[in-house]
């Protein structure tokens, strides 16, 4: 699996692969290769959307003008 692939890109590629398979113009070898690729993409998509730990950071300005992000807690979190 390629690294740094974006979710959006993965979805687009999935759509392309499925369309290609549905059109049926591929050789058997090609179609199996594409299928394997698509399975990996689906796996990636599922993992991405299952990563439920949401992070909220607050950007804090440093004295030198740079910015650091720190965990942000709303009042609700504090309760």
């Amino acid at each position, binding site marked *: 699996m390629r690294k740094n692939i*974006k979710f959006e890109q993965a979805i687009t590629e*999935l759509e392309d692969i499925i369309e290609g398979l*549905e059109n049926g113009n591929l050789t*058997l070898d090609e179609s199996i290769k594409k299928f394997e690729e698509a*399975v990996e993409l689906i796996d990636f998509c599922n993992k991405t*959307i299952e990563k439920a730990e949401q992070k909220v950071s607050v950007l804090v300005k440093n004295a030198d003008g740079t910015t650091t*992000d720190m965990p942000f807690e709303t009042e609700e979190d504090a309760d």
Partner: protein
Amino acid sequence: MDISSLRERQSTEPMTVAQLNSYIKNLFDRDKLLLTVSIRGEISNFKRHTTGHFYFTLKDSESQIKAVMFRSATQKLKFLPENGMKVILRGSVSVYAKDGSYQFYALNIEPDGIGALYLAYEQLKAKLEAEGLFDRFTKLPLPKYPSKIGVITSPTGAAVRDIINVIRRRFPPAKIYLYPSLVQGSGAEENLIEAVDFFDRSKLCDVVIIGRGGGSIEDLWAFNSEALARRIFSAQVPIISAVGHETDFTICDFVSDLRAPTPSAAAELSVPDIRELFITVDGYQTRLTSALISHVKLKREKLKSIEQSKVLKNPLLYYENLKEQVEDLKESVINAYGRKLEVTKNKLAVIAEKTNALSPLNVLARGYSVVSINDKVIKSADELKINDEIQIRLSDATVFASVEKIYTEEKNDEKEYKV
């Protein structure tokens, strides 16, 4: 020269123009009413001097008065006065001693009927719209599945909480970066611009939400800033604006790539619903599998139809066909040959018959005979002499004889005898 000394002067002594104007100015300036006065009228002859001062005339249906507003006051104005605008001026009336004319010194101009802020908002809106800052084609598309979302708002208050809650519920994989900013009062405008600038330059996020909860037009005023509007317009990161309630519209809303009616709505618009996404990906899985299955099925059917073809099923059939063809050809060759033979035979028979008719034997059979001497056929009497030994060929025998007399056949039927 002070007033008291002027009053005490001999009335016969003429005054200078400056002295008189100065005296009159003093009278004006001591009047309590003229010191703080409000006046209603319509602006005309409006001139905005390069120094920043405004010069204009305020008139009503009956009368008019010259007016001036100095830079120190014009700077604080939210809107730009225009000719024909109905306004209420607040200020004082005094004399411009140099010209000998009195005029209104305005400290503030208030639009008559509508609020100054509202007018300022309308003016800026019209200006930016004319410049094309709100044009639809300049809007950036929002990412469908953002992984990082920037939020510019107050770190306290309902807006930030609503945004976080909605994104958390709809799309947990997204990370939220909050840039805490003042959203009203002094410093808010600069703070908001700084925040937009940060997200645009750092490229930290895929999309940015800028906004705040509801409030009065004064509370929302920082979002009507021209400088903020221009910074948002030039930003390369897509920006969703959510200022106040559904009924509140700000310049920030118009110039942003998308206007959301409320902060919660902005959060909803910024991310997809994860439940729908699960369904989508699930659907892909199903489609993918069935696509592959049907693909393989298709190939298998193709293979089957190839297997079923006659040649593969009975390879000898091909040769048998050929053999049959050869046989057929052979037969037709033979037939053709036979027919040709027949024709030839018939032809031959005809020829034979014709030949037969011409045979001398046949002539002999009809009673004719051939005379020859030593196998030389005699055709004329000239070839004969008396006593020549001749052979007479009949149809069934040869007679040996000798010539005794010769009659020659003449034209006049006279017969000449050769003796």
